[in-house]
């Protein structure tokens, strides 16, 4: 059973106003504004866009330079300890102890979160079972595969029933099967009432999991909305027509919905019944080109600020 508190239903999950952060003279986050309700949300951005920095600030790990930040209504600096009891971070780099077993890792985290040994043990058994790690529970983590480590890492973060779970690139480096398994877990988490704030470099992942997708580019939020809204802005899947050698004959943009794709395919079927067809989603590269290109075309104050810093 997940721990949820009715007192938080009116409080936004995150409320960020004018957040900036620099490492020395290197500005990494620029004047961010963001408000998110409870739920599962994704922060989408390429390498170096500032995802980890933002997650670390929200999870009390890093101080920020200026602005106002509220996580579950709490200030990560002033209300640090209270907030720490309500969140968990599964960072980009594994936080599991290789020389301990899966169970030992879970027990350690449970006790550090303040659970009694008995409660920690019961909860550890439950979670290991749920993440299909029971058979490997007593083996040392050093013997685990990448996917198993990731699962254990995430399970360890759940031991004290956090209300908000930060997952920094949870599926980077995993094979397709492990990725799908993790997606199922994250979906189950959301169903149990916990909120999730995850970062990812994959549009597909954000699309599969998140209610709201926040797109980060060079420390600026360049888009923020539901998957549908985002697709509306960047266009949906593209229908590609190939010849036998695989060369692209034509690309037909669609809005991405089943009805729209079907309508275009219908036309293709009538005019060229034998042509090879693939339906391709926009790649992250295309999304960014679209979003950042748009921004460059209409520079606002934030861009001007950033250029000053870069100069």
């Amino acid at each position: 059973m997940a721990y949820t508190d009715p007192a938080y239903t009116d409080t936004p999950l995150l409320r960020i106003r004018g957040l900036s952060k620099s490492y020395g003279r290197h500005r990494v986050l620029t004047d961010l504004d963001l408000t998110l309700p409870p739920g599962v949300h994704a922060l989408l951005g390429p390498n170096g866009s500032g995802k980890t920095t933002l997650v670390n600030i929200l999870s009390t790990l890093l101080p920020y330079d200026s602005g106002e930040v509220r996580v579950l209504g709490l200030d990560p600096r002033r209300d640090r300890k209270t907030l720490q009891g309500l969140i968990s971070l599964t960072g980009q780099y594994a936080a599991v102890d290789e020389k301990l077993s899966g169970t030992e890792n879970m027990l350690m985290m449970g006790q550090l979160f303040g659970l009694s040994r008995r409660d920690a043990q019961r909860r550890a058994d439950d979670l290991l079972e749920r993440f299909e790690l029971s058979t490997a529970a007593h083996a040392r983590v050093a013997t685990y595969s990448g996917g198993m480590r990731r699962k254990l890492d995430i399970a360890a973060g759940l031991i004290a029933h956090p209300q908000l779970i930060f997952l920094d690139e949870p599926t980077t480096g995993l094979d397709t099967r492990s990725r799908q398994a993790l997606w199922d877990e994250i979906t189950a988490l959301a169903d149990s009432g916990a909120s999730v704030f995850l970062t990812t470099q994959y549009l597909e992942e954000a699309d599969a999991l998140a209610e709201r997708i926040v797109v980060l580019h060079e420390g600026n939020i360049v888009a923020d909305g539901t998957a549908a809204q985002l697709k509306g802005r960047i266009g949906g899947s593209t229908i590609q027509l190939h010849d036998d050698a695989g060369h692209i004959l034509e690309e037909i943009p669609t809005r991405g919905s089943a009805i729209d794709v079907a309508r275009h395919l219908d036309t293709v079927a009538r005019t060229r019944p034998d042509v090879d067809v693939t339906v391709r989603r926009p790649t992250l590269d295309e999304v960014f080109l679209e979003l950042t290109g748009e921004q460059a075309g209409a520079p606002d104050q934030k861009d001007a600020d950033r250029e000053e810093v870069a100069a």
Partner: protein
Amino acid sequence: MTTTTPPREVQAASPGNGAGALTGLRVFTGRSLKHSFRDTESLLMAILLPVMLMLIFVFIFGESIAAGQGGDRSDYLAYVLPAVALTAAGFGASYTAVVVSNDMTTGFMNRLRTMPFPAVTVLLGHTAASMVRNLLATGVVLAIAFGLGFRTEVGIAEFAGAVGLIALWILVITVVFAVLGMVAGSAEAASGYGFVLLFLPYVSSGFAPVETMPGWLQGFAGHQPMTPIIDASRVLLSGGNPGDEWWIGLLWCGGFIAVAVWLAAVLFPRKIAR
């Protein structure tokens, strides 16, 4: 404005109120001890090293060094005992730099820092485990010494005093290595920096009297911190009066520990793995 603190019941009902420093210390000491005893190679080294050192010094160098001082091999055994214990402990404690560095450079420490308890207890756990490991090694050194014929008639207080001084110096090198592990960029670098420390006992009164060294070394060897500690524990074990040596040794240890704790307190909050 929205409220910035949740109602009291929420904090009370939250299951993740966090452990105290004592729980942290207990959990991390257990963890570090598990590491120590599962790393069979390091454990084997920790036991074999004092054995080898003892045998080399007593049987290879012992006769000739003792002859120069007008004694025999068993005199040299009593002479070299504290230095062998501390040399072995130096190697044992250098392991602390590696494990601390590992924790600092992986995601482990980052997660701990987002949890509601004092993360610095992870360093105390490594320190406690190092004490246990190295006092075991000291026990091995004493056992070999007794096996080779070492005898002492001193009372329990003097014996405890001698072992206490050795334990205090083990604590000193452990905390120094812990700080090195914290500032080093990698585990390899951490053990590299500590290399110099491992030679310290050879340039002290531990293996040969300072007077027998070349003049330019005597200044350092006579005044470095290990000399009064080794002299005092040796004198205590032989039933003599350690005089000023013993509080000079204590002062050195206190100074080192204070500086290391201060450095750790300053550095720890700044070190966040990327």
